[in-house]
């Protein structure tokens, strides 16, 4: 793809986001406007906005990349990210909207009548938000590096600045319009190229992925490595190298790579002959195409990993701060349910697409398995398969979609994290919200630059695991179980959220881990979620005195339909 077109795509998306944001600016004046757009957003806008907010870099780029690398097991990721809304719909959506809370800490306070639980929830919201923002900024860096070759931090910084400006100038009402626009942009940006890609694939005689051998370069190809990688070569292969391989400098000379590990330095180009097997970066498994296409093959302990992933994604969705804040913009509980139904439809339509990119990527861009940058498959495919001006335009469209993904998710997260910091850590009010926005954006940006680079969908998966083991039990038990006590909620949040966070920190800062340690740490939900639920229930039963006095009234508030004229208590969120 030409850098010019890619950069203009990025500029268009950024300018459009700022303009649409400014369009909503004059409507946004009071504190409650900033937080939840005064609850006057129509259901269709709202559903599109939830979709736009939810489909992050992990969905747009990450899933296809993981499918390319690990195969059928990764199909569970989009399934879980959609199914999570079904669980959210049946267990949480209407009661949560009826609670009248703006944020998760608000809900904790309203239900448990305890400031301690509220503070605990605030800390977790900020942690989850930062963990989710970090890979968005990292991916923005990856995209800009893919199209311009510039340093990785530029993209992250760009997204961070745009988000901060947008949130600061308009608050959430403008964000709602931005988000709704972004969903349709993302869907188009992924769906339109697929049509061309499938035509091209059809034109090539529909090659399949059934061979019982690892992927090969079908044509002679020159691979450029931009950061140093360590790859494993399976069969001896004669390559043309410009740069440095195994510490030996070469300028266009032919070198035979023997089986075993080889280190390729940054900015080295390696030319492979047609039919050569693709050397894999050491962190990725070598799978034959046949194994790749079948489930339960991708990673170590695949059955455990699959179940843990299912648990984290299905239960984690309801605990994501930026998703919940969207539900408060529905006029009532019934609208919240219907909005969720529309969201499921929109997400289902979107998630049909990444698998196609993953499979075509395995066929046409196998060199990503060598450079390790499988997240770039969505960006690389249109140029590779379609070619010409059409290919470049499609590439620019996909880049625009990717940037829309970073901007929308980061904006939503920044709003909710800033809302919580502003209300619970600073003094509240519009000025605190502005200071909090800066804090909400700069910390994950710093993390993105410091942390080890991991697959974007993996890091986002970890954020889901933390949410599933902290907020899921709080919401489910809080809504449906009267005997939940403040002490029980505290203990559950602390144990579940704490254990999951420890696993996350271990994965991000240390590793890579292997064997059971690796599986348990990379997918912690299967053990942290049950622990969290158990602790919350057992401690609540042990402290019956800690059950809030107003629980009966709160239950009326959560469950009685709005058409009924009943007393719902007088609790109000603090910001209004």
């Amino acid at each position, binding site marked *: 793809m030409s850098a010019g077109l890619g950069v203009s795509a990025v500029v268009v998306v950024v300018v459009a986001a700022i303009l649409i944001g400014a369009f909503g600016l004059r409507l946004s004046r009071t504190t409650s406007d900033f937080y939840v757009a005064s609850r006057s957003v129509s259901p269709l806008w709202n559903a599109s906005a939830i979709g736009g907010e939810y489909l992050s870099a992990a969905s747009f780029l990450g899933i296809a990349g993981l499918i390319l690398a690990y195969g059928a097991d990764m199909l569970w990721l*989009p*399934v879980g990210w959609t199914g999570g809304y*079904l669980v959210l719909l049946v267990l949480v959506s209407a009661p949560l909207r009826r609670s009248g809370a703006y944020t998760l800490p608000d809900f904790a306070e309203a239900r448990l009548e305890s400031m301690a639980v509220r503070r605990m929830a605030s800390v977790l919201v900020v942690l989850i938000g930062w963990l989710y923002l970090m890979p968005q900024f990292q991916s923005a860096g990856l995209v800009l590096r893919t199209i311009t070759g510039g340093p990785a931090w530029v993209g992250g910084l760009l997204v961070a600045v745009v988000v901060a400006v947008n949130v600061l100038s308009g608050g959430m009402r403008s964000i709602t319009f931005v988000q709704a626009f972004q969903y349709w942009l993302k869907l188009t940006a992924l769906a339109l190229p697929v049509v061309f890609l499938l035509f091209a694939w059809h034109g090539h005689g529909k090659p399949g992925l059934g061979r019982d051998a690892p992927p090969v370069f079908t044509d002679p190809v020159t691979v450029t490595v931009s950061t140093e990688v360590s790859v494993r070569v399976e069969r001896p292969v004669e390559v043309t190298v410009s740069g440095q391989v195994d510490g030996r400098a070469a300028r266009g000379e032919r070198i035979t790579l023997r089986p075993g590990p080889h280190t390729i330095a940054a900015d080295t180009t390696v030319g492979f002959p047609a039919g050569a097997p693709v050397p894999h970066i050491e962190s990725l498994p070598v799978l034959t195409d046949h194994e790749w296409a079948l489930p339960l093959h991708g990673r170590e302990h695949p059955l455990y990993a699959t179940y843990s992933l299912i648990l984290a994604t299905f239960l984690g969705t309801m605990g994501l701060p930026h998703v919940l804040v969207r539900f408060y913009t529905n006029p009532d509980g019934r609208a919240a*349910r219907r909005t969720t139904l529309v969201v499921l439809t929109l997400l*289902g339509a979107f998630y*049909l697409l990444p698998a196609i990119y993953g499979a075509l990527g395995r066929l046409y861009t196998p060199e990503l398995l060598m450079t390790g940058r499988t997240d770039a498959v969505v960006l690389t495919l249109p140029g590779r398969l379609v070619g010409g001006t059409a290919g470049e335009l499609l590439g620019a469209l996909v880049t625009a979609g990717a940037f829309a993904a970073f901007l929308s998710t980061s904006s939503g997260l920044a709003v909710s994290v800033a809302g919580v910091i502003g209300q619970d850590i600073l003094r509240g009010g519009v000025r605190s919200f502005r200071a909090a926005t800066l804090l909400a954006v700069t910390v994950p940006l710093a993390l993105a630059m410091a942390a080890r680079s991991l697959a974007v969908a993996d890091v986002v998966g970890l954020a889901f695991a933390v949410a599933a083991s902290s907020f899921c039990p709080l919401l489910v038990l809080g809504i449906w179980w009267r005997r939940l006590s403040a002490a029980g909620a505290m203990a559950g949040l602390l144990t579940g959220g704490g254990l999951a966070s420890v696993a996350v920190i271990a994965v991000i800062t240390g590793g890579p881990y292997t064997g059971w340690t690796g599986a348990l740490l990379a997918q912690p939900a299967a053990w942290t979620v049950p622990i969290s639920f158990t602790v919350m229930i057992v401690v609540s039963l042990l402290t019956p005195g800690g059950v809030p006095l107003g629980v009966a009234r709160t*239950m009326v508030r959560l469950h009685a339909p709005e058409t*009924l004229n009943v007393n719902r208590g007088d609790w109000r969120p603090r910001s209004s």
Partner: protein
Amino acid sequence: MTPDKDPSGAARGERAGRDKDLPGSAWWERAARGEATDGGRRRTAPKAPERPRRQVVTSPRTTAARRPRYPATMEIDEQTRLGEVYMRSLVRTQFRLALFVCTVLSCLIGGLPLLFLAVPGLRETRLLGLPLPWVVLAGLVYPAFVAGAWLYVRQAERNERHFADLVERR
């Protein structure tokens, strides 16, 4: 979703009968009614509204105050035992419905990896030229989610309508 606005008792009875075998059916109607007759009401009733009195010559009990129906929403507001029964019945019905959906979901979704493990032949099966796991996980599962969600929303709203009919009946 279904235009179900007929407030008459006949329509309600018919609906309750239709819902009987569904997990979220409005069983509270029976429970709450049973409770209402055996003294869940503990306060004295407020005075009957003033009306032009009609002279009935055949009955000796003309001056006895008629007991008015006490609206159930007030029972809920004042957190009487009857009000609690109403609320618990609503919460339980909605929770049973939610639990039913979650159980079906976990059997279908949670069962798939085990199924693929137990019957390896299934992994190799091809449907429309694609491996079965791909057809299911990258395609069919999404419309299934939407259908499940739609059915849930319909039943949940129906439950709420029944509840509203019940407590607002005078």
